[in-house]
């Protein structure tokens, strides 16, 4: 049956007329409007997260969001969940403490490329190596938007920013390759155009135990789009539509981003493997330690052993 333009408009109007936004229950309405610019992709990533959360079996109160500093760092402030807005670069170690102290929590780190891969770069590789049970969502907009558009760890070579006025001479990180090499058990890349695959990737990340990593390529029309002549947010979305190639089996070494208008953006769910999570392994440590302790208690009091150790100069 054909649907008339009028009907579509009516349906659209009907949605607009409802007094509750579909995401209201997971947003802190009293914090809105948000600070993000028109055309920014962070909102799409947040909506994808919320939609994934609604579909997840994990009780709402167990979902926690931790952010660092920057535009994406503000995500923690807008979700109506237990949420922690930490210092620049330290979202992952903060989240590590939360996740280990209460393994029931489903902790998602939501932060930007600069926060996670420049000032916080050391933390993500180690969290992935340890395989702490965290979901890391990185909104990659190729620059430090909050501070006025300086270049960052993912800014492609030759890109113009306020601190690369003559073009960037450094290469940007290839984030999925880095995350996979560091040991992440799930690695995906989508853009803010790919709402449904992004939502499903986040849902998959909730199901995984261990460190998952999702890159969300996002427009930053105000700070990165303008100097690089990428147009408005919508123009960038159109460019994603034309240039994105879905390849779940892509060779991760080959999927670095140049952001040149003639280049491809390879997206997909690249890695989905099983590897024991940190606390699962630590359980072995607890069992061994408690076994040894009860054996030692049968031999004699701890104080005698301490004395022997000290006298033997072991300390």
């Amino acid at each position: 049956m054909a649907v008339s333009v009028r009907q579509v408009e009516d349906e659209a109007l009907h949605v607009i007329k409802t007094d509750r936004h579909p995401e209201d229950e997971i947003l802190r309405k009293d914090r809105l409007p948000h600070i993000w610019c028109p055309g920014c992709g962070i909102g799409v990533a947040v909506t994808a997260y919320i939609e994934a959360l609604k579909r997840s079996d994990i009780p709402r109160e167990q979902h926690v969001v931790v952010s660092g500093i920057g535009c994406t760092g503000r995500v923690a402030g807008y979700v109506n969940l237990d949420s922690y807005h930490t210092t620049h670069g330290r979202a992952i170690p903060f989240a590590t403490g939360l996740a280990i102290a209460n393994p029931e929590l489903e902790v998602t780190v939501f932060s930007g490329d600069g926060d996670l891969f420049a000032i916080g770069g050391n933390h993500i590789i180690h969290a992935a190596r340890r395989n702490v049970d965290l979901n890391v969502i990185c909104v990659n907009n190729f620059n430090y938007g909050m501070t006025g558009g300086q270049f960052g760890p993912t800014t492609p070579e030759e890109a113009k920013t306020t601190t690369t006025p003559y073009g960037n001479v450094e290469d940007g990180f290839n984030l999925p390759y880095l995350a996979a090499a560091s040991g992440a058990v799930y690695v995906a890349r989508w853009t803010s155009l790919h709402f449904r695959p992004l939502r499903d990737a986040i849902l998959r990340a909730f199901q995984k135990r261990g460190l998952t990593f999702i890159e969300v390529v996002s427009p930053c029309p105000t700070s990165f789009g303008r100097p690089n002549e990428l147009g408005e947010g919508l123009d960038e979305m159109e460019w994603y539509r034309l240039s994105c190639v879905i390849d779940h089996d892509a060779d991760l070494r080959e999927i670095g981003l140049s952001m040149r208008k003639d280049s491809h953006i390879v997206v997909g769910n690249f890695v989905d493997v099983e590897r024991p999570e940190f606390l699962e392994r630590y359980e072995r440590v607890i069992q061994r330690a408690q076994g040894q302790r009860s054996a030692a208690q049968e031999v004699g009091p701890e104080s005698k052993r301490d004395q022997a150790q000290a006298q033997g100069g072991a300390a």
Partner: protein
Amino acid sequence: MRKLLAPEGVDREAVLAGEHFMTGDDACAEGAIAAGCRFYAGYPITPSSEIAERMAKRLPQVGGVYIQMEDELASMAAIIGASCAGAKAMTATSGPGFSLMQENIGLAFMMEAPCVVVDVQRGGPSTGLPTLLGQSDMMQARFGSHGDYAVIAYAPASPQEMFDLTVKAFNMAERFRTPVLVMADELVGHMSERVVIDPDKIEIERRPRPEAKPAEGARILPFGANGRGENGVPPMPLAGEGYRVHFTGLTHDERGYPQIDPETQERMIRRKIRKIWDHRDEIVEYEEVELDDAPIVLVAYGSTARAALRALRLARERGLRVGMLRLITAWPFPGRKVEELKDRELIVPEVNAGQMAREVERWARKPVHRVNRLGGAPIAPEEILQKIEEVA
């Protein structure tokens, strides 16, 4: 998979009761375990590494978790995260690592997250004297993080105090919802002495918790004005309880929401400072040794107080009336006590170029006599005695 929620009271199974001959670093770790610490995140650094090693051995025995982080920035962030999930959490370090922790010590103050940071001090600046004594971070303890804040810092002078003051540090952290520092030094950390651990004498304090159950529409105020009636310390909801809290390092209102304006800054930061400053009489601790008849008073702390005590005895043997004020809390500083002593001759020995001496001078409102060594070796009692004889 278990939650690392802090035990309600003394977990007798976990406490290493008895009389021991142990190092200060080991005693510190045992104090943490006795206080209910079940999460330790750290990065090895001399001369504090023995604390990490002891925690790595002991925590899994009592169902806790030791995690070795990639650096001190991560260690400090991790203990704040663990605290927000309800664990009693600690890290230990020395000068260079303590510098790296400063930004997040400010975050712990801002988020009002109880935690304990131990600094076994060595000689600085920079890499300085990794294996040798210093008391070089006393001012960093007070002012190391940016912005205005208040801090509680202990200065243990023996392995026994490494145990006792670590327990106390956890209690104060919980009671005031704030980071607490244990400013030890290499000598106290590495010396072995008798340490008595009596579970009956251990007191455990818990952070204030919200009374109202989490409910749709009803919000509690984790940084709230209702804190006024509770000594300025608001109740702390934990992650996962359903309160849907927001904690941020940004200046925030009573709900925890960012509020970037001068009025909120005054109201909220002053309240966070006041909750400690208004209770300084309950926090401040010092030891008085033969003060009453003494025209000359040594003001000392940490391992240097041991040399000062010896110097005091030697001086008394020579008929010189010397007393000592030993700082147990360096911060808040026992300013009123020092003010009472302003008419005495004050001598401040310390293994730095004169850090706490500045604070003594500020309260005594006059210059003091200093005995300093920049690190590497303890100040000998004879050096202090020499200064006493000069002053007498």
